[in-house]
């Protein structure tokens, strides 16, 4: 009896959280002119029997469509470059003992204690001086040096046994070879966890792309969507379709790597 009521309570909570997204999905499948037609609440508010993909096809040729492609490009570049930079730094911290290692590690920790959004405005004035506004370089750069990702990878690298490294060295591997052929292949889960972190940082960012990339060629998805919503006669069908696409892309990525996502979340919280 207790289990049934707990299950029912969980169900009510879950559905309440889900309703806004369901409403967005439903309205993305009907013409924008009908968005506010079903608001005397009924089952039709949340379900559409004659769905149309019209909004989605309109989205492809719209600013938001273009901006979504920009977001994909910028996030992908961030993950690839960021992983290379962060993994190599983590290797430097984990595989060698040298004077000043504690200091370097301290800088890494310090850098993720300063929240990025707080320094976004001073950093954007620097980027203006360097002519990096409205460039993809300017959008990608702040995402690639991620102290949290370095920290996570270092923790994982520390668990790789020294004997493996010695054996590799005896076989004639250089240090880059040790990194490339021993550390990286053994660290897939940590690399995926760090990659997810880099991806979500970039995909979810708003302050930075608003400060640095707002021209038509470089605008990112969330900024373009908020511009569209801010217009006087916004087509809400289009707004909702854009919201669905910008949510589904990270959702698919998270779901694909769910195991690593929960792992990276919980390990950062418990240490």
């Amino acid at each position: 009896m207790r289990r049934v009521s707990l299950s029912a309570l969980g169900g009510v909570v879950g559905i309440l959280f889900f309703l806004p997204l369901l409403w967005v999905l439903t309205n993305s499948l009907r013409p924008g002119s009908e968005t506010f037609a079903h608001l005397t609440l009924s089952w039709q508010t949340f379900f559409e029997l004659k769905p149309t993909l019209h909004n989605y096809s309109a989205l492809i040729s719209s600013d938001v469509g273009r901006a979504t492609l920009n977001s994909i490009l910028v996030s992908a570049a961030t993950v690839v470059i960021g992983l290379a930079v962060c993994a190599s730094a983590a290797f430097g911290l984990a595989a060698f003992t040298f004077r000043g290692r504690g200091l370097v590690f301290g800088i890494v920790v310090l850098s993720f204690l300063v929240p990025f959004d707080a320094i976004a405005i001073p950093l954007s004035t620097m980027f203006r001086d360097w002519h990096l506004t409205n460039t993809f370089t300017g959008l990608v750069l702040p995402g690639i040096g991620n102290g949290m990702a370095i920290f996570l990878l270092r923790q994982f690298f520390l668990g790789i046994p020294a004997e493996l490294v010695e054996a590799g060295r005896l076989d004639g591997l250089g240090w880059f070879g040790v990194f490339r052929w021993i550390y990286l292949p053994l660290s897939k889960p940590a690399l995926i966890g760090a990659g997810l972190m880099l991806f979500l940082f970039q995909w979810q960012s708003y302050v930075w792309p608003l400060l640095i990339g707002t021209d038509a060629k470089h605008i990112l998805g969330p900024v373009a969507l908020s511009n569209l919503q801010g217009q006087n006669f916004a087509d809400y069908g289009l707004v909702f379709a854009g919201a669905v696409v910008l949510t589904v892309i990270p959702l698919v990525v998270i779901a694909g790597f769910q195991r690593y996502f929960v792992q990276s979340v919980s390990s950062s919280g418990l240490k």
Partner: protein
Amino acid sequence: MKQRQGLIALAFLAPALVCLAVLRIVPAISAVVESFYTESLLRGGRVFAGLGNYTDLLSNKDFRQSVGVTLLFTVLVNPIQVVVSFLLAVLFTQKAAGSKLWRTLVILPIATPPAVSAVIWSVIYRPDGLANGVLERLGLPAQPFLTSSGQVLPSLILLLSWIGVGYWMLFLIAGIQEVPVEVREAALLDGASAWRRMVSVILPLVRRPLAFVLVADTVSNLLVFAPVQILTKGGPNGNSNLLMYDVYTRAYAIGDIHVAQAEVVILVALTLAIVAGQFRLLRGDE
């Protein structure tokens, strides 16, 4: 040998160290330095202003209101989100049918970028939007939400909790699952009531993740920007003008970059002070 190792390590570390230094640490230092300067039209350039920018800010009515609104917001939003995340974490770690599915539905909004969530809720809160549709169904009068001085902060808190609670819940679920099943089951056999079991058994065992969630949630809530910029522009009458948005308008709408840098410094100092206070409190009752 050791020195050689250091050089090789440095080669691997260099790209990341340059990134962290230039993109994180230099701007933080530059904000502090620039906050002591001002643009002078007469002398055509930057001149040292001492604490001038700070005293300007402190005597500015809008800034003082923004600090007040931010503190009120902080005091309200964090306890609400931490308590709700904890209750949900307890609920979704019970053995009950469908628990996994319901939990997933609560976590889903994590995927939505905050700015997109703000856009969605701007439609929900419209006078003819979903929120008033729900109220009508419940037989309640329509509400102004974002255009009312009294309702604007609670409306933002609701939207931010929809975004954040599932995320923080994940940390607490991980913490609860660290508690051995026997301990949880033993409390059940003791006949401890559900409420007492939660307070006396689970709560002390998830102190660490709970402390982490409180601090991390507080920091992220002090930096809230997108919902304010997209939904309210700080209004009505400055009642949702959180500091992060005030910094942004000061830098780019008013165009006073040096005073804005001073405000960034104050925002970070405020964050550190609140977090330090929380650490003291958490240690104090141990």
